[in-house]
């Protein structure tokens, strides 16, 4: 099933190669095929969700597929998803057709190439969330840079080349570090067991000395922090977003950023728990800075797209904060916030794209009074704005609340800072909303703009509906992720139960009459939980680590 989800878009892309498209004569056909392929892929991801066993006794990783790939180095084609991966795969499946629909009028040149890139991108994104082999993960991770690079570089706005290069250099810098650490891990596995392996489960079981962990964690964390992006590694994002075409922005904000958060949850912290715990305060501090900083800078942006881009820095700061809390609420909140942010920010970029399609500008000052001209678009924008500011009852609130709860249990000071983001998000979103939509129509160019078309309804209606459904029935999304998150949190806690970080809430507050943390049983499954009990075992020296 997972291979099917990855291969479908690839097959679609290959199919497109054989369609001659001289002078864009077959643009319509190509668009239809691409959309159809992405819809079928979405169907497959939904079937994964339907087939995912959520019972307490279920395996953590399901739909597992294994095949040897490069046996000499123990590299396998190994796929499998837990609830976290599942939800992100579904998100990818959901957003890709929407992104494709946004391209129908904004992308007018080289439609065939564009469509191929989009499908390859989708395949690679699904692959990233399914790969259980670190080498395979890395391959998917790097493959998707290529279509994204071209999406920005070919179909972007004026400064697209600068933005594309900046995007790829930033990301490559991080991923090279990660590659070194991945190879180092495999090497350590060889030293310990006599064979190379990139299998995540086997690497989880490795007992890595703290010093080595420290360096490896740093390498992974920097790669993921750039992707998230976490302050101060965020400056590629505004440029990339502003220059990227609308579908590129939707995918970038909707899915690509989530890979950073996913990587932290799946790899960086559970692979190197002790180092992760010691880095957590630093990363948490950076994430609180990101929340406030991103919001403040968003507040003063004259360009709508840049504003939304900086708001992403702020929202994703919440995600990282939740992860660093290293408890179930925090990580669940972070995972949920990734889904919520994918929906609401994807929708914001789509909406800004619709306005930009009409007026060919994204400057807030060019608008004003749009509500009188396009009431439907305004209503949709309002719904998404509310979702983005985290109005309770909508998707943004659930994630933020759980993240703040998780972080509060760890260190309330972080929440005192992060909570300011709640105020500031209202400030920057409502200020923008007021300047764009309220007031009289002052600019003649804005008179007589057409309201939402049927195609645009098809883009925004599912997103707006999701924003509400996720807020009203969050458990439908939280429940599948819970076993996965619990097992990861337990893995980290079992390694580091002695450290102050994790036991802080219990030791400082000994009075709560509430029941203690419930201990979910039966998450054994495929993951061998072997807490490192001794630190005496030393591995063979690792090149480059120190």
């Amino acid at each position, binding site marked *: 099933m997972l291979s099917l989800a990855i291969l479908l878009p690839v097959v679609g892309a290959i199919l497109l190669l054989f369609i001659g498209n001289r002078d864009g004569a077959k643009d319509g056909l190509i668009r239809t095929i691409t959309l159809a392929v992405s819809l079928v892929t979405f169907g497959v991801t939904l079937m994964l969700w339907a087939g995912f066993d959520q019972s307490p006794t279920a395996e953590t990783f399901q739909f597992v597929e294994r095949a040897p790939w490069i046996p000499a180095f123990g590299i396998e084609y190994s796929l499998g998803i837990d609830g976290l991966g599942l939800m992100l795969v579904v998100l990818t499946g959901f957003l890709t057709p929407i992104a494709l629909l946004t391209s129908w009028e904004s992308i007018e040149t080289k439609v065939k190439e564009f469509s191929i890139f989009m499908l390859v991108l989708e395949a690679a994104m699904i692959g990233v969330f399914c790969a259980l082999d670190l080498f395979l993960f890395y391959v998917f991770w790097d493959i998707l840079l290529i279509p994204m690079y071209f999406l920005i570089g070919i179909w972007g706005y004026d400064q697209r080349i600068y933005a594309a290069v900046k995007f790829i250099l930033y990301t490559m810098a991080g991923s090279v570090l990660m590659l070194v650490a991945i190879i180092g891990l495999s090497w350590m596995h060889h030293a310990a067991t006599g064979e190379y392996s990139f299998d995540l489960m086997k690497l989880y079981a490795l007992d890595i000395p703290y010093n080595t962990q420290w360096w490896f964690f740093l390498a992974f964390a920097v790669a993921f922090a750039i992707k998230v992006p976490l302050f101060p590694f965020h400056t590629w994002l505004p440029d990339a977003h502003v220059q990227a075409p609308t579908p590129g922005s939707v995918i970038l904000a909707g899915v690509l950023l989530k890979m950073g958060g996913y990587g932290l949850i799946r790899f960086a912290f559970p692979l190197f728990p002790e180092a992760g715990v010691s880095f957590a305060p630093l990363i948490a501090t950076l994430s609180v800075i990101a929340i406030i900083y991103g919001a403040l800078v968003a507040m003063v942006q004259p360009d709508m797209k840049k504003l939304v881009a900086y708001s992403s820095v702020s929202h994703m700061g919440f995600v990282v904060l939740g992860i660093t809390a290293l408890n179930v609420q925090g990580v669940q909140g972070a995972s949920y916030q990734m889904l919520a942010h994918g929906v609401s920010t994807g929708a914001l970029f789509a909406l800004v794209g619709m306005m930009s399609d009409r007026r060919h500008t994204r400057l807030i000052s060019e608008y004003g009074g749009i509500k009188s001209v396009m009431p439907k678009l305004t209503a949709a924008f309002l719904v998404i704005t509310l979702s983005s500011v985290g109005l309770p009852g909508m998707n943004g609130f659930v994630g933020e609340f759980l993240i703040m709860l*998780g972080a*509060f249990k760890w260190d309330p000071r972080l929440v005192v800072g992060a909570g300011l983001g709640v105020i500031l998000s209202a400030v920057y979103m409502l200020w923008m909303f007021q300047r764009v939509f309220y007031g009289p129509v002052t600019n003649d160019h804005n008179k007589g703009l057409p309201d939402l078309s049927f195609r645009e309804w098809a883009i925004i209606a599912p997103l707006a509906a999701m924003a509400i459904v996720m807020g009203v029935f969050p*458990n439908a999304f939280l429940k599948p992720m819970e076993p996965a998150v619990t097992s990861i949190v337990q893995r980290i806690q079992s390694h580091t139960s002695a450290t102050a970080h994790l036991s802080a809430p219990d030791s400082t507050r000994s009075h709560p009459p509430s029941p203690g943390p419930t201990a979910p049983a039966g998450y054994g499954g495929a993951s061998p939980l072997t807490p490192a009990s001794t630190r005496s075992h030393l591995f063979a020296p690792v090149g480059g680590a120190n």
Partner: protein
Amino acid sequence: MLALIPLLPFAGFLVNVTMGKRLPKSVSGGVACAVMVASFLVAASQVWALVGMAPESRQITQTLYTWITAGDFSLDLAFRLDALSAVMILVITGIGSLIHIYSTAYMHEETDPEYARYFSYLNLFVFFMLLLVLGSNVLVMFVGWEGVGLCSYLLIGYYFVKKSASDAANKAFIVNRVGDYAFILGSLLMVVTLGSLDFVTIATAAKSLPPEVTFGTISLITLLLFIGATGKSAQIPLYVWLPDAMEGPTPVSALIHAATMVTAGVYMIGRLAPVFELAPITLMIVAVIGAATALFAGTIGLVQNDIKRVLAYSTVSQLGYMFLAMGMGAFGAGIFHLYTHAFFKACLFLGSGAVIHALHGEQDIRKMGGLAKHLPITYWTFLIASIAIAGIPPLAGFFSKDEILFETFRHGHQILWVVGVLTSLLTATYMFRLVFLTFHGEERFSVQGAQVHGAGVPGAGGHGAHGHAGAEHPAPVHGAPMHHAPAHGHGHGIHLHDAPPAMATALIVLAIGSVVAGWIGIPHALGGHNALGTWLEPAFTYANCGTPVTTGELAGFAIQNCEPGQDVALASMTQVATQAPETPAARPGPAPSDLIGVTDEVVEEHVDETALELTLMGISTLIAFAGIGLAAFLWLKNRHIPEQLATQFAGVHRLLLNKYYVDEIYDAAIVQPLKSVSTEGLWRGMDVKVVDGAVNAAGYVVGGLAAGLRLLQTGSVKTYAAGTFLGVVAILAYYLWR
């Protein structure tokens, strides 16, 4: 059944938001009113069911489903009706229905889609407000809490073409967000400390906490929640949004910014009374902020010239009274005033709406006068409500305000009592200044509105381009006299239209309410039974039922520091005894014998207090009459005196007129610095110069290296092949010899 109460207005919202554009006004307005009335009937039937229960078990809970689960944190989407929320839902659906009906006439001039938009927002507001009061835990309450904020935002900005309206809307939402930030922090601390957000569980857990926790943590929790309340209920320092909120249509001001939403903070404290009782420090702060706000807003209200702004500051001031009561631990008195205030303030706002309606959008009381004979229904209802708010017996405001003042005095806070009485004087004065300037004296109004409406009505998208388009009559209704005198300086001989039937009905019902609403809370001192207080008691103390006041020191602590709650708590404890509604952790109640002694003392005290209470009542009634007399002297008989005073004390007058410059101070101290720091410091400085500077510098360095490396890139396949070969050899060599 319980869920039906909020879901009915929500259904109305859905109808109007999806199909409203295509519906005629009679249908969209009719649907909105019908769901409200239906909701009121369901609410009444549920409350009736509640009345039929034994006082201590008056609770109806309905759990819909589990809303959020993460680890050991789990939260239900559940509703709970008890004595307190019963009062609230009746006020919300009852007065809400009246205001919906009033709106059908008031907003009649809007186009069909705008009319539907208005009613969809109004229905949505009621939905969220009911969620707020029916939610069985803090987070469901918070959904309602922010939801009503959203609707308030939408309705304040209803005339969105006007910049002042959208500014006011933003201000309301953002200032409320500041409060909500504190509210969230308080809720989080509550989860961590008390292990739950369910009101019953919270109350039970709070009682069993050791005193050292209650001193610090509970004080902090309650303080944070109270900051949230200062936002929603417009108290110092977050009251600034409410006067600006008058940009919304007048019925909105009546419903949201007088009768219901702004009282949410008071309700919240009542809801969490068992927790607040444990935090005497917070209660003291609540009382002081409440009293200070009451006085402060009263002084501003005295000089404002916009009829709605006077009422807005009056609302802020009256909310201050409610918080004063809550801070005294006299939760019943606070809710009592909330309830009576809903009647007379809604009546006043709707009355002001009728005036504005008749004058085609004029809001400046300097341009009114002598309207009594033109608008008799409006005049008489407005007058009755003014007497009620001034505190003249036996109208509603007298009983509730008096109970607050009495409780304040009784608890030994004479200074706060003096502040309260002073505010009472101010209230009577500014209200009757309003009455006299609007309805009495010379007619200073003009009818230029007739021209405005002619230009404004048909303009597509131009609705609201001028002040209060919604307040204008469509031309046919005006009748001939209007059109004959479009630009007269003075309105002598002009025929103004009094409130049409839908508006008149609401005014009359609310005026009747302003008279009789207080009668269910007539104090014992006047031979009444304070039925409302008795009814509410279990709601503030329900936690006691489930938990014995375990440690002696804790009980002593609570009583010592929260005398206000004393007799209430004890009375209910004796009544309630071992009853334990729906708390799974129910334990036997307190042994009645422990409490009897204390109860006797309370009874003895009561005899002395009756005399005191009567004395205080006399004083405050005299004060109220003095206020009215003062207003009559200054603005009815000697209009030159206030003008002289204004010139003589120009500084003070300007200070009050400009609302103590608080808006300007906030702007200069917070908004502008934040903007400039963000623009110059963070964005252009940090982001562009520092971070990107470093990135670009790294780029140059790499570029330099690359220029060197480029020498290797010869383009010759032979060179590459040689390189590859050497590389392979090197790797092999490493593996062979390592």
